[in-house]
């Protein structure tokens, strides 16, 4: 069964090729079988491979499948090879499992869209690229998947390309992640030139053997890889693209911008953990980035009015938690949280999509209200997802976030500060999640609802809700792939605070948002509060900052160079030649006496030249 590993990425690739080459001519009945069926095949195969892998050799096991030699140029050897260990198995199961559920959801959600076939083609290409990323044996193949998911993200965010702002959002996402990708490429160059190989296991062991901890090569390489991770995972300072990426269809937001692509950065850091362990300062930076981002995004989420933007900022915040864990060396909790986050965040996005569909594409939460009676399945699944997000006890989110925060507390000397940031973030999470539920589902009834949702939409919601509730028990033994945790248990005060903070947030949210809109109105009349609200609404000023720092100077430079300095050199040569031509044309004036005079001048000049001494 393990030998069928190559089929797992191959099925979505085949699906993409069929849908791409059929150019939308396949009927709407056939497209879902190919589009969702290919990912379903992958999911089944992944499950079988997982069972096989875990049954036969639980510890110390790695399966490498070499497909063919991709590049072999003197010293530079890159193979198309797949590498399966506990970490990549976890990622593969998440990508194919959650991906399949989202594809099934899209069958119903995108059914009326004229670009149905194109949608599934792009989604299948995305799943292929993501699988290449997580199964890659070497960093070059990982980079192939990395760029591939960036491309598919662009294609899918700008899926409805007739509206200009969707194209702008797609472009923004691509350019911002490109900045990170450039840093990552530089990191790969550094690793190759210093270590001689891009094969992950070989490079890591060579780094550990050859570079002392804190050496500048390790710091530089890990810093550059961090740049790439920060771009893809939408962390500070490159988090600005994710809220605007909500311009894409909701299944896209669920798959790419919640469950899989944005976790690629987390996966990269976990894969190259040996390198990060060699540069403790960079690891601290990872934790700091995670802590600051989770707070920043939490505040921003609190001020949003679009249901998808709230969830987008929530994603940024939760990935901040993963970075926080990676930064203190809590590798397994970070990946575990990645997995549970994939479940509940995908669930939240899909349920939000169901709400949007039922409200006829209304996305402002303040135009919605009292939906709990009118959309029962959506309400209960959304509630379960929110409970997992907030980490209420006995949900999967509780197990992962609780373990993560406790590990953060005891893992490093800066632990208590980072833990405090994480717990404050948990308070914010509870606040904005409860706000979302109170405004959208509870409260007075508002808005028009179209009530029947097809089964292709409700069944994935229910399955994901079950996973969000019970997924905590699907924890896989990640230990041989990632270093084990050996942190002491924190004091019980810490444990209780961590567990109770979300409840505090829920109570606070009820007090602010549950008792009618007038309390919020009165608060917003205060100038400071409304100023803060506007600041948080605009993503904490980052978009304005980048606009002033980068966009305006670039536009100014483009305007100044409108005549193009380099091109004008060539245009000036042409102008010179034309001026010369005009001068010479003056001699052809058709006047006989002028010609005669010219001849006399020529003769005079010639004679005086000839008579020189």
């Amino acid at each position: 069964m393990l030998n069928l590993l190559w089929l797992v990425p191959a099925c979505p690739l085949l699906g993409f090729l069929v849908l791409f080459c059929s150019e939308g001519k396949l009927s709407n009945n056939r497209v879902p079988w190919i589009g969702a069926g290919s990912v379903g095949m992958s999911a089944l195969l992944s499950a079988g491979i997982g069972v096989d892998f875990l049954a036969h050799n639980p510890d110390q096991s790695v399966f490498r499948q070499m497909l063919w030699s991709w590049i072999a140029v003197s010293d530079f050897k890159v193979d198309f090879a797949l590498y399966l260990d506990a970490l990549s198995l976890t990622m593969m199961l998440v990508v194919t499992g959650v991906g399949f559920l989202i594809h099934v959801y899209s069958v119903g959600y995108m059914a009326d869209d004229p670009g149905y076939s194109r949608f599934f083609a792009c989604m299948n290409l995305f799943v292929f690229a993501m699988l290449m990323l997580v199964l890659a044996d070497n960093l070059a193949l990982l980079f192939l998947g990395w760029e591939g998911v960036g491309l598919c993200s662009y294609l899918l965010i700008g899926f409805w390309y007739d509206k200009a702002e969707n194209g702008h959002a797609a472009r923004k996402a691509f350019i911002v992640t490109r900045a990170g990708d450039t840093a990552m490429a530089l990191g790969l160059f550094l690793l190759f030139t210093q270590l001689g190989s891009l094969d992950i296991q070989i490079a890591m062991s060579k780094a550990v053997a050859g570079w002392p901890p804190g050496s500048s090569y390790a710091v530089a390489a890990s810093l550059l890889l961090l740049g790439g991770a920060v771009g893809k995972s939408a962390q500070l300072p490159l988090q600005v693209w994710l809220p605007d990426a909500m311009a894409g269809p909701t299944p896209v937001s669920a798959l790419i911008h919640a469950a899989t692509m944005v976790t690629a950065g987390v996966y990269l850091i976990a894969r190259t953990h040996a390198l990060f362990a060699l540069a403790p300062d960079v690891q601290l930076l990872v934790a700091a980035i995670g802590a600051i981002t989770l707070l920043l995004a939490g505040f921003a989420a609190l001020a949003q009015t679009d249901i998808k933007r709230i969830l987008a900022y929530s994603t940024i915040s939760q990935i901040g938690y993963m970075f926080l864990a990676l930064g203190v060396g809590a590798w397994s909790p970070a990946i575990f949280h990645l997995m549970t986050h994939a479940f509940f965040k995908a669930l939240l996005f899909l349920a939000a999509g169901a709400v949007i569909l039922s409200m006829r594409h209304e996305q402002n939460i303040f135009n919605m209200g009292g939906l709990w009676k009118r959309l029962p399945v959506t309400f209960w699944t959304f509630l379960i997802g929110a409970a997992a997000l907030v980490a209420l006890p006995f949900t999967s989110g509780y197990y992962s976030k609780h373990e993560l925060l406790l590990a953060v507390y005891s893992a490093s000397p800066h632990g208590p500060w980072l833990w405090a940031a994480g717990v404050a973030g948990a308070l914010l999470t509870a606040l904005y999640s409860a706000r979302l539920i109170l405004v959208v589902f509870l409260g007075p009834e508002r808005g028009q609802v179209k009530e029947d949702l097809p089964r292709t939409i409700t069944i994935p919601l229910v399955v994901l809700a079950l996973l969000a509730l019970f997924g905590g028990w699907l924890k896989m033994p990640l230990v041989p792939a990632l270093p084990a945790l050996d942190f002491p248990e924190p004091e019980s005060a810490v444990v209780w605070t961590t567990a109770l903070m979300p409840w505090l947030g829920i109570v606070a949210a009820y007090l602010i948002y549950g008792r009618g809109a007038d309390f919020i109105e009165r608060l917003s009349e205060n100038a400071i509060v409304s100023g803060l609200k506007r600041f948080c609404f605009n993503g904490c000023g980052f978009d304005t900052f980048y606009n002033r720092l980068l966009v305006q100077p670039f536009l100014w430079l483009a305007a100044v160079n409108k005549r193009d300095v380099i091109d004008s050199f060539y245009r000036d040569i042409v102008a010179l030649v034309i001026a010369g031509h005009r001068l010479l044309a003056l001699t052809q004036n058709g006047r006989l006496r002028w010609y005669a005079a010219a001849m006399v001048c020529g003769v005079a000049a010639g004679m005086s030249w000839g008579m020189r001494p």
Partner: protein
Amino acid sequence: MTGVSIQHALLLAALLFVLGLVGLLVRRNLIMMLMSVEIMLNAAGLAFIAAGSRWGQADGQVIFLLILALAAAEVGVGLGLVMQVYRRFNTVDVDRLSEMRG
């Protein structure tokens, strides 16, 4: 009688040539230009005669005969052209003959 020195004859020839040249450049009437050309030709012929006289050879006289024949032929053709120009442009003002447009 003593012969005329060659310098004087050549000077006369040069003066005549320059007068003819100036007339060619200054005049606007095609026929007057042709007359100026005649003067130039005759000046050249005078220079040849003076040289032939100086060296005492008949070559100068022979060239002058050639120049006369040349001048006659040229005037014949020139006057024919002037007739055509007059028929076409209705003028013999050489400045009005340009058809170039800038």
